[in-house]
């Protein structure tokens, strides 16, 4: 009996019900892209498109009129722009985490969510990239941040954390995209081979790169997949660390802290999983994929949220402790101001959403209730946005010299640029759901009970350890 099969003694149950076979998986997943889109899809897509319009208008106005169209000011030179940037980047992290980290940890349950999560990563990073782009005063000179030879003979300043960001985030985006596409190749082949009409055959055929399931290919393919996973794992940790450097390396009280990198990564994973489960819950309702994205998957994700949520909570309290312990009056004031100042409402919203709400997941009944987990996942998304808002604005608006203290008030354009990015995200996501296999079929198939040769222990010691999701030593 193979080790990856559930251990009944400790109450483990199979990830998917017995009637789910390889064929079932292909049919179930592919039909989504083959049949007409359900009303639910059109509703989501329509609304998303509308907000995408809002984004285009807001950004257009912003670029035409100047950053002054936002509420940013001195002292709050950064506000919603960077808040949204960090928020989206954070959301992106869950995808990579699920597809890479869980892969290395041999968590076979990831198979039914990783495609989905990776797609989310890509779209979230696209939204994130929007903000550093449009938040600069002279967007038409943005390329000066890249090491391109130019008439000024000048180079970017590699000491600036913002420049580290440029490299980190673009690397992250590229690698995620590659990872995603590599994963899609065999499934494109499936769609190609199922395709009835020529266009589908041609398009998916082209994307499948002529994949023919050859084992000589699988050999390199799986090695590439393993290496990408191994690369993405430190990458995903580094990206949010670098993002946190934007703050940690500054001299601003409330930013200048060593706890930021781990704290940001935990927060990123936290918010990412929240977004994944929000989307999953919607999709499995709309497309009835309950057999593949099972309650067990959701429950496992909720457990991760409980863990990361508590990590974030720890970071919050540790910040306060250090502020008090440091004896630095500026540092102390910032945190007193966060909890009691004019932005206390934002701070306490953050704590309630991020620390309190996930504690519900201690109870199995709540952990496995769709409405509860949906509500909590939404709350976490809100809370994590506020976390970034609190970190950025409450630090800036009252720093060293009281003479230059001020307040930040968002404008319509601020709101447009934020809600608009949600529009962009869901537009891309709806298109993904509609035209691409939202579940990694070949990985699920490989993870099904009996998908692997059972009696084979004898002569395959030198077998590939890292087969997709089910790289498991035979017992």
């Amino acid at each position: 009996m193979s080790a990856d099969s559930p251990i009944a003694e400790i109450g483990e149950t199979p990830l998917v019900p017995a009637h789910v076979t390889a064929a079932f998986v292909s049919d179930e997943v592919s039909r989504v892209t083959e049949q007409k889109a359900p009303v639910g899809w059109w509703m989501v897509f329509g609304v998303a498109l509308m907000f995408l319009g809002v984004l285009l208008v807001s950004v257009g106005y912003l670029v035409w009129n100047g950053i002054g169209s936002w509420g940013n000011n001195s002292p709050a030179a950064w506000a919603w722009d960077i808040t949204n940037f960090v928020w989206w980047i954070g959301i992106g992290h869950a995808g990579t985490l699920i597809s890479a980290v869980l892969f290395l940890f041999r968590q076979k349950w990831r198979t039914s969510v990783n495609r989905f999560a990776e797609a989310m990563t890509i779209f979230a990073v696209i939204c994130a990239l929007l903000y550093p782009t449009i938040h600069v005063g002279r967007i038409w000179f943005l390329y000066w941040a890249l090491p391109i030879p130019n008439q000024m003979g000048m180079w970017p300043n590699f000491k600036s954390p913002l420049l580290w960001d440029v490299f980190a985030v673009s690397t992250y985006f590229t690698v995620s995209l590659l990872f995603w596409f590599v994963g899609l190749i065999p499934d494109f082949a499936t769609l190609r081979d199922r395709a009835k009409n020529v266009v589908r055959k041609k398009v998916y055929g082209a994307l499948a790169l002529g994949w023919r399931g050859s084992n000589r290919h699988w050999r390199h393919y799986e090695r590439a997949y393993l290496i990408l996973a191994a690369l993405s794992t430190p990458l995903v940790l580094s990206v949010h660390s670098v993002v946190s450097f934007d703050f940690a390396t500054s001299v601003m009280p409330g930013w200048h802290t060593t706890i930021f990198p781990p704290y940001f990564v935990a927060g990123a994973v936290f918010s990412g999983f929240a977004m994944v489960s929000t989307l999953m819950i919607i999709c499995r309702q709309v497309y009835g994929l309950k057999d593949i994205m099972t309650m067990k998957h959701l429950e496992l994700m909720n457990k991760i949220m409980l863990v990361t949520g508590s990590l974030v909570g720890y970071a919050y309290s540790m910040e306060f402790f250090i502020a008090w312990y440091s004896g630095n009056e500026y540092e102390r004031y910032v945190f007193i101001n966060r909890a009691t100042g004019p932005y206390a409402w934002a701070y306490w919203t953050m704590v309630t959403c991020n620390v309190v709400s996930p504690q519900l997941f201690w109870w199995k009944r709540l952990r496995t209730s769709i409405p509860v987990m949906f509500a909590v996942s939404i709350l976490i998304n809100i809370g994590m946005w506020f976390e970034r808002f609190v970190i950025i604005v409450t630090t800036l608006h009252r720093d060293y010299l009281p003479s230059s203290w001020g307040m930040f008030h968002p404008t319509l354009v601020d709101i447009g640029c934020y809600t608009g990015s949600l529009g962009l995200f869901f537009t891309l996501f709806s298109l993904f759901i509609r035209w691409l296999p939202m579940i990694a079929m070949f990985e699920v198939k490989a993870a099904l009970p009996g998908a692997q040769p059972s009696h084979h222990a004898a002569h395959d010691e030198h077998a590939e350890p890292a087969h997709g999701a089910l790289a498991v030593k035979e017992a």
Partner: protein
Amino acid sequence: MSEQATSKRPVVYLAEYDSPDAIIHAAEGVRDAGYEKWDVHSPYPVHGMDAAMGLPDSGLGWIVLLCGLTGVTAAVVMIQWMNGIDYPLVIGGKPPDAIPSMVPIMFELTVLLSAFGAVFGMLGLNALPRHHHPVFYSDRFEAFSHDKFFISIEVEDKKFDKEKTKQLLESLHSTHVELVEEEVA
């Protein structure tokens, strides 16, 4: 595969199987029979198949290592030259060629180039993309991406023999054996 077959020549034998166990046995059979230009097609990577086919370990890792080293070197050279040599500026009172601030970008470029190495190296080793392959002439072959397993033995294999090979494959309990032919002008 085209219908009006003028004159045809065989290209590959396709043997179809239903279960991973069956295919892995068959693969061992073909391997032991000493064939070389043959392959196994499965909807997902089947465990132990490399051993069953007697394939060596993938060399992709070396390519990636090379790319990774290129990445880190590129980063160091770029930063040192740009900020330290070509246009040194006093930034925040720190030395223009300060090392610590280089680290994040060194890491990022390493990862980026390694990733390129992994993906394009894999495609290279697999000679992909290749949209035309004899196995596609078979109408049954489509099922490989669904839930069926195939063994293909190419006519180029020096042990290939229209009869012997067919017998071998049938002896290996394949559910269906097909000789795929292509037209010759």
